[in-house]
């Protein structure tokens, strides 16, 4: 039964990928990539990787579709045709792919528990995680405690992405859009035009934000955690922006404040690490945070998940504002 589902989903994935390759209308490609992302997330679920599926769903289908739409709103909707037929590139790619496939013949079977990679740290994590760290969700304990410094790196990468977007587009560029709309007196009054959508979405936004908070704090017990919660929180604000307009959304949440909030998240994360060093332990060693090691781990994981969630939310929203205000400047 699992085999049939896996084979079917992979076939759909292949068909979608081929279609994305052959079609050259960018809007259609964005639609198909939404389907691709949903298929990937289903495959992750059949492979029992629920946290990854969660993140793929929230980011791949929601945020990426919205960002890509903002992008093609500012550029062309037709892919430019290649000036030559890239036969040499095709040959190189096929040769490299064949060599890689030949290299995988020596690897152990997919998911084999006797594989060498599963013999060193994995048994330690699986056996000791409940005693040493505490949360029932081993993924959270690995992400937040055993490999906390890698997660700090990921959070800083997200923050850097936000920095580069702000560096390229600038807070003044985003603010100019809002000022321009207000100065020209453009209040596109679609209050009556989209009454149904406005009311429904107004009803949903608080529930979405509440669900994001649930995902944030429930990451210890089920799939969830800081990344997914930040993305869902940003999705709530994106809903607001879609219905009420970019200028009102930037009044609710000014881009500069988003920049400060993003920095605050990384500061919380790094601050926990420095605090543990000041209290006598290693960097990001949560055992020294409280009297008992398990309580210290719990507090440490709570704080850094908060930092991750705050940073991810603010940077996602900042990037969305930046892209959408570019499109607005052309109108």
């Amino acid at each position: 039964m699992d085999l049939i589902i896996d084979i079917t989903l992979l076939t759909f994935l292949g068909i979608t990928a081929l279609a994305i390759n052959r079609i050259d209308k960018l809007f259609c490609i964005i639609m198909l990539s939404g389907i691709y992302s949903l298929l990937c997330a289903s495959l992750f679920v059949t492979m029992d990787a629920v946290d990854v599926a969660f993140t793929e769903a929230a980011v791949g289908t929601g945020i990426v579709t919205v960002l890509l739409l903002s992008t093609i709103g500012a550029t062309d909707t037709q892919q430019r045709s290649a000036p030559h037929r890239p036969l040499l590139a095709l040959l190189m790619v096929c040769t490299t792919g064949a060599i890689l496939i030949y290299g995988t013949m020596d690897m152990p079977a997919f998911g084999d528990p006797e594989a060498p990679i599963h013999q060193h740290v994995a048994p330690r994590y699986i056996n000791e995680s409940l005693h040493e760290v505490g949360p029932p969700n081993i993924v959270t304990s690995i992400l937040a405690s055993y490999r906390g410094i890698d997660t700090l790196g990921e959070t800083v990468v997200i923050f850097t992405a936000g920095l580069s977007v702000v560096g390229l587009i600038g807070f003044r560029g985003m603010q100019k859009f809002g000022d321009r709309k207000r100065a020209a007196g453009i209040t596109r009054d679609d209050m009556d035009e989209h009454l149904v959508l406005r009311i429904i979405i107004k009803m949903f936004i608080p529930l979405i934000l509440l669900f994001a908070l649930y995902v944030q704090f429930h990451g210890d017990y089920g799939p969830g955690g800081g990344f997914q919660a930040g993305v869902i929180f940003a999705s709530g604000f994106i809903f607001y922006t879609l219905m009420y307009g970019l200028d009102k959304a930037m009044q609710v949440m000014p881009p500069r404040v988003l920049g400060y909030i993003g920095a605050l998240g990384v500061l919380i994360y790094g601050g926990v690490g420095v605090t543990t060093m000041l209290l006598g332990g290693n960097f990001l060693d949560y055992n020294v945070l409280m009297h008992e090691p398990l309580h210290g781990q719990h507090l440490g994981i709570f704080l850094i998940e908060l930092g991750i969630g705050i940073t991810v939310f603010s940077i996602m929203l900042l990037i969305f504002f930046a892209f959408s205000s570019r499109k607005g400047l052309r109108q």
Partner: protein
Amino acid sequence: MIGITHIYAGACLALLAIMGVTIFRAILGPSAFDRVMAVNMFGTKTVLLLSLLGFLSGRPDFLDIALVYALVNFLSTIAILRFFEGRTPADEKVDVSDAAQDVNPASTEE
């Protein structure tokens, strides 16, 4: 006697078939709206497939993921429709078949 797990398995297979037809419509669909509708329907079917898979394998954790999918599916549908709105004013009749996708957006604004 057919157990309830067989019903789940049968429903999963039927949902996979429906998803196949939906992908077909997304690739073929002569107009852009056909594709948006297909993606929306695909998202709904994915939610149902995940709920059934969760019950089939005995792990109800998957329902959190199903809830998130329902949410982001709705978000992306609304986003696409606002995208259409921003590009074609209401008083300009635009042909939404594939041929119209070749039009440079700069020529439809102002």
